């Protein structure tokens, strides 16, 4: 079953000399349990594609369907509901809510989605080595720990689709590798589909499928 379907998706940003096309008709599909690496040089549209898939931005044309729901048919609130219920996003940085503790951050999206399972959260925290940090605030954690919290939070919500934008981009090589191992293992356990934007061939190589984006189109 297709968790994410993109058909002929186009997206442009306003520029000084008229619209600058970023996505020029992208087709992409992702089924449950599948892991996909999205690579491409800077400005190729990787992040935009991910934002459109998450409903954070709207495509200019084409179809974006998450779990069979066409995003174009939804208003802002509807898209927010999709984000709450079906999708989880992990960004390169600033994923966490600074005013909440690590524990509350992990639970936050699951509770928003109404799928809070304390046992699951505890398991994830344990697996990601966050057990001793649950009462701390994000600012007290290292970059790697903060990204682990973001991963735990995303998976605690048990999303059908996990979108990650350079989740290890801000980390050193060893940490990045460890975090990636943990994330892939947990995604596999959860049976979620993972779409990950990365520019690292090493990371891309660990994913099930690999799509290269060039100048706004799949190569």
């Amino acid at each position: 079953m297709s968790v994410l379907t993109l058909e002929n998706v186009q997206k442009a940003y306003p520029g000084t000399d008229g619209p600058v096309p970023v996505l020029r008709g992208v087709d992409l599909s992702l089924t449950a349990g599948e892991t996909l690496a999205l690579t491409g040089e800077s400005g190729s549209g990787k992040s935009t594609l991910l934002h459109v898939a998450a409903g954070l931005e709207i495509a200019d044309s084409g179809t974006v369907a998450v779990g069979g729901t066409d995003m174009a048919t939804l208003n802002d609130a509807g898209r927010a509901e999709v984000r709450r219920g079906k999708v989880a996003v992990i960004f390169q940085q600033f994923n966490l809510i600074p005013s909440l503790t690590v524990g509350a951050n992990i639970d936050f999206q699951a509770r928003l989605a109404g799928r809070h399972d304390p046992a699951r959260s505890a398991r994830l925290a344990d697996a990601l080595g966050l057990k001793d940090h649950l009462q701390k605030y994000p600012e007290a954690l290292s970059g790697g720990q903060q990204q682990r919290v973001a991963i735990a939070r995303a998976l605690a919500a048990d999303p059908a689709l996990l979108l990650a934008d350079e989740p290890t981009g801000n980390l050193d090589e060893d940490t990045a590798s460890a975090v990636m191992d943990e994330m892939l293992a947990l995604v596999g356990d959860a049976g979620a589909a993972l779409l990950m934007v990365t520019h690292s061939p090493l990371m891309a190589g660990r994913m099930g499928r690999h799509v290269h984006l060039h100048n706004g189109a799949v190569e």
Partner: protein
Amino acid sequence: MIGTTLGALASHWRRHKLQLFALLAGLALATGLWAGVQAINAEARASYDAAAGTLGEGQFDQIVPRRGEIMTVEDYITLRRAGWRVSPVIEGRIGDVRVLGLEPLTSPGRFDIGRVAEDSGMDDFIGPGLLFADAVTVARLDTDLNTGARVIEAADAPPNIAVGDIGVVARLLGRDDIDRLLVLPDQPRGQPPLAQVAPQLRLLAAAQTADVGELTDSFHLNLTAFGLLSFAVGLFIVHSTIGLAFEQRRGLIRSLRALGVPLRTLVSLMALEVALLALIGGALGVALGYVMAAALLPDVAGALRGLYGAEVAGSLSLRPEWWVSGMAIALLGSAVAAGGKLWQIARMPPLASAQPRAWAEAARASARWQGVAALGLGLVALGLALFGTGLIAGFVTLAAFLIAAALALPVIIRPVTAFAQSRAHSPLAQWFWADTRQQLPGLSLALMALLLAVAANIGVSTMVSSFRLTFTAFLDQRLAPELYVQIEDPEEAARLQPVMEAAADEVLPLLRADAVVAGQPVQVLGIRVGPTYRENWVFLGQTAAPWDAVEAAEAVIVNEQFARRADLWVGDMVPLDTPLPVAAVVADHGNPSGQVILGDALFQSLYPGTIPRAFGLRTDDITGVRDRLRAAGADPEAMTDQSALKRFSLQVFERTFLVTGALNILTLAVAGFAMLMSLLTLADQRVPQLAPVWAMGMTRASLARLEVIRAGVFAAIVALVALPVGLGLAWVLLVRVNVEAFGWRLPMFLFPGDYAVLGAAALGAALLAALWPSLRLARLAPARLLQVFAHER
């Protein structure tokens, strides 16, 4: 290098125009309120000084004719030739303008030499003559005066008074007598007593002519306190904007230092920048203050004239004492706000982290000292409230109490939000409260400002409303007679008294003498005890049958002012010629002076031959009695009916309250503005805090709604805290300050309705302030939110 560095520093303001606006507006508002109040005070003081300087009122003993007599130039010469150094004064009115004739050669303080009016030659004095007046009065007189005298403008002339040589004024008024003689302080040796030289004249001691400045001091002290409060509120804005601007420029500062700008240069340039901004903001503020003072001054002038009979110019002049103080306080306030930050920069290693310190982290460190400071100041306020004496102590109590409350505010709000968070079930609610707590440091200055404003509003409105309630009751009690008649001379009294006795149901003659009792200058009043007094007067303290005792000449009634100043209460002996006990103490809100009230028989034995100067008449037929008195030759001008008197008295107080009311609204508006500015300047910092929540499935609209609700929650907590603070303020004002300033203690009434309205106003101000930043958030481009997470598209 200096130019380049300044350009780099200024680029911050170019990019953050809103911050610049907040800073300048905050400075302007703070300075404006302060300078405005100072301007009003300065104008009033200048008017008193001009009046006291010209009229000698309150400064000099005076010689006036005994009742029914007039004083001639020959009397003046007789006194001078007997060695009395006196100076004649004549006064009258031309149209609405009071015209005062002085004898410049002998009048006191002759030779305080200043600038001379170059074009006013002496021939003009002896010929058609000259009058001096301020610009407004000159304009007014020009149309009224067709007598050939020339009116020239003198900047420091007292308001609504034209002054000229006694010869000129006597000719203008068509008079050849003298109204009064000012007695100079230095008198020669061997001077014979007045009774021997001129028995038809009498000497009035300076103490008996009230000093306007002293009476009005408390009024101005109130205004000054308000000005200071407003300035404090405005300074909160300045403090938070400057703080923010410095925090946001840490990166820039690091870069500049790394690029080789010496620390000293950098700090100096930043100080220069702050000074420049302070000058601009201060100048705007002075202009604002001018506008405000010009708008309020007519009401202040009206209130002062009504309350104390003090003439204050209705127009404003740009006096250095207030605009300089406005600029100085703007510079000082900015220096205080920037000083700490500059010190930090001066000590910062060149490559210290450019990351703005988290607000929360800074707040946790400062929360502790804030709590300690609040506690300390609270104790000071409590100690002063219990043991302090004097007006200054009263105001220091107020200041300490208010600052303590403001500092305590974050300490109070923090546990409230923590508690709410712990009780919240939904994740959104939990996040809301957690986030609210995190917002606290950034907003606490604005919230403190709001607290001060709301508390001041509650305090002042409680005082004003208590005052009004008490005063209205007092008027009903005191102004029972339906008609009042003023009497000119003994013949008129003899002529009219039988008419009054025949026409009215009850006649209440009022005998009056000025005296010094127990070291206090007082009015001694003689009254005819009757049903009107017995039924209407309410006492603060009394014996079983006070009126019987007064009627039997066995006791006296004193007013509260005298009782407090002389430290006498019911049962204590009043040191009259024959000491008598106090039978009752009556609240008296009508005048600032002490009164001792006697039965008329006792009064006549103490002050034989005194004729009543005023009568109160009880009647159901006011017009009928009026007509009969007019037919008997009474001056219609000298008859006042009670309703007119009440209306006038209440009007006077309304105008006083109007001024404080206007200042209240302005203070609240400034607090609302502080909140708006804080929210707007914090909006940029909010984006990274809100972006993850948005990414996890909240719409921007619902986030914006939560922002508004958050402001409302803050305002509600502030309003709740402000209530006890405001009531405390009112208590200090009524029980401490008022007693010191006016000599009477006002009972404190509570006005829950008013407080609800004020709370709603505070809530409204906060919601209004949150509206714009929230709208901006609701319309924020997703791209701006996404930028938080990555720099790459």
